[in-house]
């Protein structure tokens, strides 16, 4: 599948493929090349296709991007198991990202159930390199391909009663073995945003990374990316978007309300009961580095929370 959008150089031109491959894969590649040719190690990476022509945007970070191997093999996606290597092992063979529809409903003038490819055409594709900070104390830098969340939401004309947006992931036990046990976790995975957060220019819907269609384990075919919030807010494999007046219930908040707040903005000053948040380990680095307020996006998003006590509304 090739998704085209207007203008800009192809992402595949911006980031040469060999840069994405970690040193480990290069070694594997070099060994295998002698025997069966370069196609084999690259074949392991095989994915649905390239996203040609995503425009490079002003959303870039100085830091070096995390390798494709690490971005796609170290994932929290409990629908496929609670170990971080399980999504990469299980999701590609099980998740069927097409055909895929997203139901948009609630406080809006034009509710509809739309095909994901139609949804993706709401706006030109962009490449954005964002920092990604997990509540567990690790972080990555990821070149996403996708579109602004606001461009998608606007299409459905939210009314003045749309104070919040609620999101739901797929929870199909046939595709997602982790969702079979409904006593352990309150499936489906759910997340929510205040409408002004959802409409913020940083809020992004990713459909790819590193210039290619989103791998299953990263939340194919479409997922949220909210770089100023802890990673679990960035819900994967979205099937439902609902505008509502009441604050939505969320998966982790329901499991442990004292640990995972509704906002869950990255905040080095507020510790999680399990993990200190002052520092983080950037995947691929040895020493922990200081965590930045709002994950380094304070300039853009601090205004959303003016006057709020972020220790209480964590």
């Amino acid at each position: 599948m090739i998704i085209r959008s207007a203008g800009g150089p192809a992402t595949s031109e911006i980031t040469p493929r060999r840069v994405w491959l970690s040193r480990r894969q290069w070694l594997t590649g070099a060994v295998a090349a002698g025997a069966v040719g370069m196609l084999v190690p690259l074949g392991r990476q095989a994915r649905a296709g390239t996203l040609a022509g995503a425009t490079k945007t002003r959303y870039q970070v100085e830091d070096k991007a995390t390798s494709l191997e690490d971005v796609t093999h170290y994932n929290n996606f409990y629908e496929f198991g609670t170990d971080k290597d399980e999504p990469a092992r299980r999701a590609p063979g099980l998740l069927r990202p097409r055909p895929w529809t997203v139901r948009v409903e609630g406080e809006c003038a034009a509710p509809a159930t739309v095909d994901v490819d139609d949804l993706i055409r709401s706006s030109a594709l962009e490449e954005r390199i964002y920092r990604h900070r997990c509540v567990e104390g690790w972080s990555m830098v990821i070149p996403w391909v996708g579109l602004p969340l606001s461009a998608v939401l606007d299409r459905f004309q939210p009314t003045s009663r749309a104070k919040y947006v609620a999101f739901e992931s797929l929870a199909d036990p046939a595709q997602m073995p982790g969702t079979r046990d409904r006593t352990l976790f309150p499936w489906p995975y759910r997340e929510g945003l205040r409408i002004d957060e959802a409409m913020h220019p940083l809020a992004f819907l990713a459909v790819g990374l590193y210039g290619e269609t989103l791998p299953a384990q990263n939340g194919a075919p479409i997922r949220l990316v909210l770089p100023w919030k802890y990673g679990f807010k960035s819900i994967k494999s979205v099937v439902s978007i609902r505008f509502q007046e009441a604050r939505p219930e969320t998966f982790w908040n329901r499991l442990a309300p004292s640990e995972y707040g509704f906002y869950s903005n990255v905040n080095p000053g507020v510790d999680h009961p399990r993990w200190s948040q002052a520092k983080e380990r950037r995947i691929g680095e040895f020493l922990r580095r200081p965590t930045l307020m709002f994950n380094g996006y304070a300039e853009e998003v601090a205004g959303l929370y003016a006057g709020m006590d972020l220790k209480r509304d964590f």
Partner: protein
Amino acid sequence: MATAVLTRWRRWDRPALHLLCALPLLILSVKGLSGDLGANPIEALVRGIGDWALRLLVVALAVTPIRRLTGLSRLAAYRRMLGLWAFAYVVLHLSAYIVLDQFFDWQAIAGEIRKHKFITAGILSVILLLPLAATSTGAMVRRLGGVRWKWLHRLVYLAVPLAGIHYLWMVKADTRQPIAYLVLILLCLGARLFHARHSRGAGLQ
């Protein structure tokens, strides 16, 4: 013939067990050195060593109940060795945390011990295990005298449950595995209490 095999086994069982106990560490080291521990090798190492620390503690704890249950008296010869291997993994786990995870950031470490109850439980467990490891030699047993040594080593029934609780509190959501460990630990503790009552009763006869 059978006795010859048994004699030979008795010569090799302890070295074989040492090797077996060293194996997880060997595998983790090889994986670590060849870059085979995934995207977050430090986490993988801390966790991998922690897993084996807890496993070996439970195995060491289970030696006596299993010996009593099966009558395999030879098992007693493995108890100290298993306990010391467990302690070695505990020390390595803690060292990996201090050196690799926190890189000697003592302020952060002190903060974690104070603020995160799973770390508090872990450190309490280590503190309780220290005197046991220190008094594990034959000379120390003699110096303390059997009765006092036995009393001291009952600390294990506090230290190992605390290690299990450390794991339980660390886990984010799926607590099945730490609970399984805690059940095993409680079974060993139960067997110990049962034996104490039972043998006292027998003594009265």
